[in-house]
């Protein structure tokens, strides 16, 4: 196959010798943006992925849906029996529901970061994986949003959080960290949904024209809002995407900072710390990037999107993951070093509990998952380019980050200042609900891939249009042209 294609005028000179031919083939194999097959073939591949769920994938989807329904049944039980049915007690009033909230908001962070920050900084890696990452955000946020409601004993009163004029003569207190949280998460959800929708418009229009199925055509016609791809629409599209990218990055930082302030604004030992905001953000990005790696592995394996999601993308994400692991270790060490040096009795109680006490097995398991596994393995190029091993590492990090949140909420909270109030937390009903929540996210992720092309072909097409090969001396290398 020659590098010259009809649709790619930038790649002009065909290779002259066998050596050059080899170099070119090597580059094309490595880089998606140097390997154009034409928009038509790409569109077919991306649209085909919507119907490429095999028998096993569908069985997995059904099982996941069943598990998600199990969580619904569990919630019903709790509605009838009351919150007392859970393992929550008077000292540990926040249990796995709040752990899940923090965890899912955490993995919801990477999607927007990869999409928005990579866009602002001009990282080409984002092109094929941005939508896959944003979708993680979308459903992780949906799951996270459920948990404060599940945590309410009387969820039908959730609208009391919303500032609407009312006959109750009650008004939400905006001085409360919980109210900031509601506001920040609402802003983030609205921003994320609109951001993913704006990016989808051109692909929905493409799907509208190509699909042969009647209900699909109607769905895409309605959703694509009559997108034609005129130069004015594209100019607006570029600008609105840039505005969203610049706005949504600080919003993303604020969301997890405010989640951390839910904790840090109390005087609970182990929580009352100024470092909590950035520490939570780093933790969120860490678990979020790992979650995106899990999703990329799923897509490549189950939807056979090997053309789009290549080893180079896994490599970049794995490097990002390694950097985030260093950042997380740095913050965690800083947090504990200050505690240890300060040597305040209530805080030392918690440190002893984690390092040598009853919670030590969980703590050391967390250190193994979050520090030993990623730092020990990710420095190897061969590991970074192996989706299978990366998948396992990413799952380890999920376990580690879940444990980290579990230790903060489920263990530290049991050691308040007064020893009289010491307590332990044994989750019961929360466990099936948490399993259901994980299933919920993966279930809807798969269902989303049935309805929507999970690869943004216009972004990949643009990238391929901008990239080309040139010869310097005897080496063929890639270059990028700047259109603006």
């Amino acid at each position, binding site marked *: 196959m020659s590098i010259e294609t009809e649709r790619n005028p930038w790649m002009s000179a065909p290779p002259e010798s066998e050596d050059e031919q080899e170099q070119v083939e090597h580059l094309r194999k490595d880089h998606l943006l140097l390997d154009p097959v034409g928009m038509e073939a790409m569109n077919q591949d991306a649209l085909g992925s919507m119907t490429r769920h095999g028998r096993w994938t569908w069985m997995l989807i059904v099982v996941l849906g069943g598990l998600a329904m199990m969580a619904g049944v569990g919630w019903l039980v709790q509605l009838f029996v009351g919150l007392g049915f859970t393992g929550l007690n008077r000292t540990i009033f926040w249990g796995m529901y709040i752990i899940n909230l923090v965890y899912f908001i955490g993995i919801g962070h990477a999607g927007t970061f990869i999409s928005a920050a990579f866009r602002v900084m001009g990282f080409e890696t984002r092109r094929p994986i941005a939508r896959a990452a944003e979708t993680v955000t979308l459903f992780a946020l949906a799951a996270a949003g459920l948990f404060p409601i599940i945590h309410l004993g009387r969820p039908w009163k959730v609208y009391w959080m919303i500032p609407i004029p009312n006959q*109750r*003569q009650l008004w939400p207190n905006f001085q409360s960290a919980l109210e*900031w949280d509601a506001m920040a998460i609402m802003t983030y959800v609205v921003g994320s949904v609109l951001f993913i929708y704006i990016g989808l418009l051109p692909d929905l229009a493409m799907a509208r024209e190509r699909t042969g199925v009647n209900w699909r055509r109607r769905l895409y016609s309605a959703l694509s809002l*009559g997108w034609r791809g005129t130069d004015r629409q594209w100019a607006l599209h570029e600008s609105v995407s840039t*505005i969203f990218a610049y706005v949504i990055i600080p919003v993303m930082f604020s969301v997890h900072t405010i989640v951390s302030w839910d904790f840090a604004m109390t005087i609970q030992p182990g929580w009352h710390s100024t470092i909590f905001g950035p520490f939570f953000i780093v933790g969120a990005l860490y678990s979020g990037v790992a979650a995106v790696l899990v999703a990329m592995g799923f897509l490549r394996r189950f939807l056979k999107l090997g053309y789009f999601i290549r080893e180079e993308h896994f490599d970049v994400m794995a490097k990002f993951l390694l950097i985030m692991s260093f950042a997380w270790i740095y913050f965690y060490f800083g947090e504990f070093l200050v505690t240890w040096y300060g040597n305040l009795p209530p805080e030392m109680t918690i440190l002893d509990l984690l390092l040598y006490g009853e919670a030590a097995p969980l703590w050391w398991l967390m250190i193994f998952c979050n520090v030993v596994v990623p730092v020990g393995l990710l420095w190897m190029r061969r590991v970074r380019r192996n989706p299978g091993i990366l998948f396992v590492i990413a799952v380890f990090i999920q376990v580690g980050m879940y444990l980290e949140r579990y230790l903060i909420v489920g263990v530290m909270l049991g050691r308040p200042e007064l020893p009289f109030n010491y307590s332990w937390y044994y989750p019961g009903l929360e466990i099936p609900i948490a399993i259901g929540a994980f299933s919920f996210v993966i279930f809807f992720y798969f269902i989303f891939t049935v309805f929507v092309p999970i690869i943004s072909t216009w972004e990949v097409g643009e990238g391929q249009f901008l990239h080309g090969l040139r010869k310097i001396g005897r080496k063929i290398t890639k270059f990028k042209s700047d*259109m*603006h």
Partner: protein
Amino acid sequence: MAEYELLGLFQDVDSAGDAVEALRQVGVSDRSLRVLSAFPLSSKILGRKHYNHKLGLAAGAGALLGFAAAIFFAVITPQLYPIVVGGRPLLNGPPMLILVFELTMLGTLLGGFLGFLWQGGFPSAGGLYDKRIAEGYLGVAVQVDEALLEKVQAAYSAHKPVDLKKAEVKPRPDRRLLIGTIAIVALLAVNFALLAVSFDILHLEFLPDQMKAQISFASQMGPRLGAPAGAVPVPGVALVGGRPATAPLAMTEDSLQRGAILFDIHCAVCHTVDEDEPVTQVASFFPDDGEPPAMTSARVMARTPEQIFTFITDGIGKMPSLAENLYPANRWDVVNDVRSLTPAE
């Protein structure tokens, strides 16, 4: 005069750009020209004028609205529904800043998105399209009236389009202004309705006024609730009309034993048993007022059990009330103990 829309398909950027230039030369205005592509191409590549859109303005307006909403929520509404703050200020800066930040950002996002919809003309059903555009072909669309039609068609054919589509433009009223106005009016109406409900101008019977409807009592106001099952009774009042509310306990051995222990704890700091015993440390504080009487003195022996009970409960002279120290039943134990004492021979 009838208007026509034409869409020419081109295989690459160069020929599309040339076609745009040719069309402009035959008198097609830049406004009625569009280039359709599968991914963004800058106006310079297509040889077009820079498109000055007002998206920044829309986002800025949204930000201002969001900021105003935040100030309304953070500063004005807390004063409409004041909460009990225990002497602390009702409005605080830093929490207000957080709300202002979030709502300003939300306003920016919504303003940007609505501006995008408005200026992009979404949702729209009009316009020629070809599915090959999503496959990488470029479309050049123009809208011209009949007079220019032939020249334009010639300009197209000169650049060898892959395909040329033609359709008559049916005039379609622009309903965006109408829809926008209706949306704003509807929003305002909903807001005013909610405010009317809030201030009881409009009272909806089916919406329970939860604060007013619930049963509430001022402090100490009856009727008293019954004791829940399994509650442990606490001792009731000790005195009724100045006399003990309970009957004296029988002088059993248990009672006497308890009384002796309690006497040593609560009474013996001041009172001796025999008059001959040396005065206690406490008694030495009252050299002029007379010492606390010994328990077997004539003064004490003359008192009835009820009187001693009353003295323990209320105190007398310099003696304080011991009601906090002793349950009524235990006071009777102490009384029994005092009654059982006899002067030393």
